[in-house]
């Protein structure tokens, strides 16, 4: 283990970004595009290699690298376990697709856009493998800068409003987390996650600290009622930005809940389960209804993301292996499917320059290939068996039924609502009479669009039928986490008797 494979994963996109930024050929867009594509594909290959090397029977952290950073205070520490590896692979998988997709969508300052995406990749991978709270915070926050620019520079009409809302909401949530991190340091003398797992945090302070972390993750997830930034950000962001946002940025929070909320504050997590369940149910039911009412395609998918993430938070806080594994699976699945849906929206938006659902209708007769691909992802999003969406939702509901029957029943209604809004969206766009003359002029998918979407479709269907590679990667680590959790809760209840 001499080769620092994780650090290379983190630093490689940045090197690529700097190379593009300082290369002289400002007019030559193709060069920048090929460099960034090459870098991101290399990173993807590296992460697959990492996955192959990864020992999934071992629940402890692997590939751990530690370096002295601020002397005697904070160490740069990265490492992965079965939970984080999948998110890293997801990140490196989605990024090249984003880069291919910018081909047609970004007209001005393409070079800077690619630089921002590559910086973003560094931050996202960093979030998923940092094993020190301060390092985690650094990556978590630094990701705001490129995303703010992506929305603000290349976004739509109300981009300034959306970019500000995105930035300030997330920053406000995160500063409280920073206070909590510093408090943890002064309580325990370390911010090293592995050490903190073993040391445990005084149960007196866990509730407050949990809330501070929650404030950050809840905004990022996003949970009801702090979800309002997401539809705005999604609607205004360029397609590639929406894809990154939906596929990876939202997952940071889910990952944070698993890694930090449950891992560090087990007793508080137990205590706040009712809160999470309530908010998740509201997210599932309420935002599904909101999604039904949307006139804007992107907004509809954004609200559906909120509902899906509601399932994720619910599954995580069931504290059962099925629930947590299901949540991880659901996050990966949502990463693939929502990315694909945003790309699908991007495809027609590029041609028609409107996202209003009523302007479409009858696309199937002019874009048959598009109709097929869009169908696959619509069914994936509503959780049809045979797609990844099904496995995730099924496992989550399985876990929830085990702990709380009522919650699970209500959540199941959400599945039906999900089917309703997705199918209705599909019907309104693809079927029906062609009412708009411009729809007749639409051209079917071109080659690069076809490549991206079919790759996503294949992955989604493959893991829908054969989820084992993903589930077996996570299961050992998830069980380790739950064991730790149960042990802590047991000690706590024993001491309180």
């Amino acid at each position, binding site marked *: 283990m001499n080769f620092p494979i994780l650090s290379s994963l983190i630093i490689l996109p940045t090197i690529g970004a700097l190379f593009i930024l300082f290369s002289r050929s400002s007019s030559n867009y193709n060069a920048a595009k090929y460099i960034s594509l090459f870098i991101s594909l290399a990173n993807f290959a590296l992460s697959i290699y990492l996955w192959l090397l990864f020992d999934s029977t071992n629940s402890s952290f692997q590939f751990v690298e530690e370096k002295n*950073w601020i002397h005697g205070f904070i160490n740069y520490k990265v490492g992965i376990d079965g939970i984080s590896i999948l998110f890293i692979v997801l990140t490196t998988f989605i990024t090249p697709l984003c880069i291919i997709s910018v081909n047609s969508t970004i007209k001005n300052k393409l070079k800077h856009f690619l630089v921002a995406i590559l910086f973003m990749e560094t931050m996202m991978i960093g979030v998923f493998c940092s094993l020190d709270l301060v390092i985690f915070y650094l990556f978590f926050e630094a990701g705001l800068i490129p995303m*703010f620019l992506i929305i603000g520079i290349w976004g739509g009409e109300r981009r300034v409003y959306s*970019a500000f809302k995105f930035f300030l909401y997330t920053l406000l949530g995160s500063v409280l987390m920073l206070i909590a991190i510093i408090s943890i340091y002064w309580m325990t003398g370390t911010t090293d996650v592995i050490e903190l797992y073993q040391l445990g945090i005084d149960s007196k302070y866990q509730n407050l600290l949990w809330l501070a972390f929650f404030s950050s993750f809840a905004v990022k997830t996003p949970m009801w009622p702090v979800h309002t930034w997401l539809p705005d950000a999604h609607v205004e962001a360029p397609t590639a930005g929406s894809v990154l946002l939906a596929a990876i940025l939202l997952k940071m929070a889910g990952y944070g809940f698993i890694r930090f909320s449950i891992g560090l504050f087990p007793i508080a997590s137990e205590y706040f389960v009712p809160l999470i369940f309530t908010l998740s149910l509201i997210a599932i039911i309420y935002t599904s209804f909101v999604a039904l009412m949307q006139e804007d395609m992107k907004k509809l998918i954004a609200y559906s993301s909120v509902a899906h993430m509601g399932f994720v938070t619910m599954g995580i806080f069931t504290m059962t292996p099925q629930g947590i594994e299901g949540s991880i699976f659901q996050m990966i699945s949502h990463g693939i499917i929502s990315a694909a849906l945003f790309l699908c929206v991007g495809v027609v938006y590029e041609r028609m320059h409107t996202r209003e659902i009523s302007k479409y209708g009858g696309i199937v007769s002019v874009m048959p290939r598009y109709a097929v691909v869009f169908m696959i992802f619509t069914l994936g999003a509503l959780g049809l068996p045979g797609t990844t969406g099904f496995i995730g939702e099924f496992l989550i509901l399985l876990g929830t039924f085990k702990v709380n029957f009522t919650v699970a029943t209500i959540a199941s209604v959400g599945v039906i609502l999900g089917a309703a809004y997705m199918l209705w969206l599909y019907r309104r766009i693809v079927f029906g009479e062609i009412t708009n003359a411009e729809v007749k002029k639409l051209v079917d998918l071109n080659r690069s669009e076809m490549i991206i979407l079919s790759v996503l479709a294949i992955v989604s269907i493959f893991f829908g039928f054969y989820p084992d590679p993903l589930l077996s990667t996570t299961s050992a680590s998830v069980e380790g986490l739950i064991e730790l959790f149960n042990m802590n809760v047991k000690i706590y209840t024993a001491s309180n008797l």
Partner: protein
Amino acid sequence: MNLQLIFPEIYLSLSIMFLLMIGVFKKDSDNLVYNLSILTLIVLLALVINLFSINESFVFSESYKIDTLSSFMKVLTIVSAIFVMISSFIYLKTLKILKIEYPILILSSILGMMVMISSNDLIVFYLGLELQSLALYVLASFNRDNVLSSEAGLKYFVLSALSSGLLLYGCSLVYGFSGSTNFTYIANTSLDMKYGIIFGLVFIIVGLAFKISAVPFHMWAPDVYEGSPTAVTLFFAALPKVAALTVFIRFLYTPFVNLIDQWQTILIFLSIASMVFGAIAAIGQLNLKRLIAYSSIGHMGYALAGLASGTNQGIQSSVTYITIYLIMTLAFFSCLFMLRKKNIFYEKIEDLSGLSNNHPILSIALLIVLFSLAGIPPLAGFFAKFYIFMAVIKQSMYFLAIVGFLSTVVAAFYYLRLIKIIYFDKSKEKFETDHNFGLKLTLAISTLILALYFIYPGILNEIVSKIIII
């Protein structure tokens, strides 16, 4: 007595007189004196660094103190003075205010600051303060044909005189009740809580708060910042704060260290008020210099928060903060100096509109500086705030920490607004690109430090951790 310890100050005084002679007797020596002043500062820097290794020692019967804090702050002052001078050369030249008095006044004010930084006695401290301030009054109104500049000078003079009066009154109270002007001696007598000393302490804190423009004694700052020539504004925003902060540390932690319960509340109030006010008041500003004035008020709030914690770690975090603040200020003003077209310098926020289209590199530099000022990781500004709140939270001052962080979010709004104007809006002005080497160098160095600080934050920490006051 060891005169070697005050050799830098002696050297600087002699140089000032020598340069004055050159200026008087040689015709058209503006450039020469300017360049010689920079040279003087570089030599001075070497002399001060030479004293770095010396342990705590006193001269002039314990009224003048040389220790790590004073050496570090002097180095900070001199280095930023050098960069201030090399970056503002073109500005002064263009505005035709490059006279021989300018560099000499700057040098005198630096001499005053050095005396302030090292003072261990009320009278020595006051001497340094006045030397520094007198030079600054003239500098503020240096562009004398400009109404705003003259107004700035007068305003600064009147308000500063008022604060000096308060300060002096406080000093006399302290002297009256303790029987000495020496810090160390006062510390020993202030144990038996006399009310007179506490009154004196409050007056002194008020006077000093004026100098670093902490709320509610900040009223002069926006007008003076806006009215003064930009080169002088840079000087105002950077150097006097270092000296005043050092004096703050000295006062609070040497003579009045036993009265910590008394001054801690005042400092917490000053800090919270500055952070909140600095964040909110900056939102409506249209002039970049006014904006940076409010921003610097906010930043002083954070620096004071570190001092309020009453620990060595708090002091160290404040010193770190002011160091990074200086770098950010230098970088920001270097960008301002670059907004020049046909001998006019632009300083309205709207002039930045769409800057990224015509000046990509300058825009990236500004982007880094602004995000750093907002305190977003991984830039240096984040670490500055991080250390402050480490110290604050260690003392369980959660209220201060939470207010501080929330005002960071509010402050982020106006920095983001600038970024929005630079990057999201339509382009308007196209500025000239032929900047002189000194300006480019200042901008490059300061921006690189801000951007790459996170790779090895230990360097600054190791030096600063040697500053141990209590």
